[in-house]
């Protein structure tokens, strides 16, 4: 056999190839993965919502404590100024 024929034989070796059927359990595997993904996504939605709620409550608490702190500071300054009533 010469090189050309041999090469042609190799290239033509996929002629008459038949389609292969996938494993029967593949569909069940796919459905299981889809169900699992849905379950996981719900769980992550809940975690994300909980994290947001926690962040918002921490922010509100911090804002409140800052506001009370600045009020008491300004009151202290005013009270020290008003004791003498002298500006200079």
């Amino acid at each position, binding site marked *: 056999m010469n090189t050309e024929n041999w090469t042609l034989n190799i*290239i033509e070796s*996929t002629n008459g190839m*038949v*389609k292969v059927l996938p494993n029967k359990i593949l569909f069940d595997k*796919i459905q299981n993965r889809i169900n699992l993904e849905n379950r996981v996504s719900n769980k992550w939605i809940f975690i994300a919502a909980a994290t947001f709620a926690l962040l918002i409550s921490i922010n509100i608490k911090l804002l409140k404590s800052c506001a009370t702190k600045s009020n008491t500071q300004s009151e202290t300054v005013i009270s020290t100024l008003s004791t003498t009533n002298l500006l200079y």
Partner: protein
Amino acid sequence: MALDNKDFEKLYNQYSILVYNLALNYLQNIEDAEEITQDVFIQINNSLSKFQEKSSLKTWIYRITINKCLDFIKHKNSQKRFFIFGKKSQNEFEIENVSNFEHPGILMENKEKSKLLFEIINELGENQKTAFLLSKVDGLSNPEISEIMKLSISSVESLVFRAKSTLKEKISNKFEEYRKKINY
């Protein structure tokens, strides 16, 4: 929005053979082809609502499958590079070896020859490999391939032609090896 079970099963029955065989031709490994088939149908289920019908459903499925296969090969190659510099894989054979694959759909008398053909197909560039597999192995026409690959028909013709020339050249280089093997 995902498909309901009956529609999804119908879609799976219609396209699973196409997806599985294309993945098998690309990856030359049954387990990998099954994994890609799973990934493709999960993506179809998740993003069918986003499908804009700019192309046919079949073309869209072909594109998803090809992209998944290419990503899978890239991932596998990066793993291979990691194993060269890092610790060795326990399953090195699986990562390195694709040439020993015997396609289950190939006629018995062609098994040995097709093994060599697939080994050399793997050495082609991404586009040449895709064009050749779709044209020669999947039997698609050039207009169909051009739609799937989003290229002009003349580009597809050129890709297939160059792929065949490269294959012929590489296969003929192996002829000496084959002759020696036969003489022994």
